[in-house]
């Protein structure tokens, strides 16, 4: 089944209420037996004497959405997912806020968990998205992703 290219970007943080709504929306899909959720949260890392106050995300959105579409088209059949939802923030996200949300559902838990994990890894390594770490003293550095 071919799906249309969906937008994954949200301006600003991903609110907990938005995540709750997404969970609630699946109560009518009774073929689902397991959900898996990953949420990325901005961490207030300490670098010497300064602390990360926020991360400002930018993306090459057209290319990112095209890449995400390719990921979706391979991951859904690979794990036989009933559905998957991916959201990523753009703009300034304060420490403690949610900036990345992946939600997969399948008849059984393993598919949902493994599918979710593959999506998280691939979004972080394949999508042209950049995080600028803003310190509390207004200096910044470009984020470097950890291998795991």
């Amino acid at each position: 089944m071919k799906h249309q290219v969906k937008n994954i970007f949200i301006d600003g943080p991903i609110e907990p209420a938005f995540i709750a709504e997404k969970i609630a929306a699946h109560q009518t899909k009774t073929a689902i037996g397991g959900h898996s959720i990953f949420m990325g949260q901005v961490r207030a890392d300490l670098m010497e004497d300064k602390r990360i106050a926020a991360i400002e995300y930018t993306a090459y959105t057209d290319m990112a959405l095209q890449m995400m579409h390719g990921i979706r088209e391979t991951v859904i059949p690979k794990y036989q997912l009933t559905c998957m939802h991916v959201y990523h923030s753009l703009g300034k996200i304060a420490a403690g806020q949610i900036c990345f949300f992946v939600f997969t559902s399948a008849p059984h838990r393993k598919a949902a968990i493994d599918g979710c994990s593959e999506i998280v890894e691939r979004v972080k390594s394949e999508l042209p998205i950049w995080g600028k770490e803003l310190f509390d003293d207004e200096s910044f550095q470009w984020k470097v992703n950890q291998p795991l």
Partner: protein
Amino acid sequence: MKELTGNAELIFGQVPDTDQLKKELISSFPQLEKLPFLIAVDKELIQTNTPITDGQELALLPPYSGG
């Protein structure tokens, strides 16, 4: 990259292919030589030297750090 080059968009004259583009970029902005980046032509990553034709969208992509 914007910080190094001072611009979000760069305008070049005729550049036949991506290898030549890389050379011209590094000669204009020598700091780019130390910065790892990938090139996308019309939103597709290229792995090898690729001819550039009129009207294509080229993007220089530093290492990704989403999530």
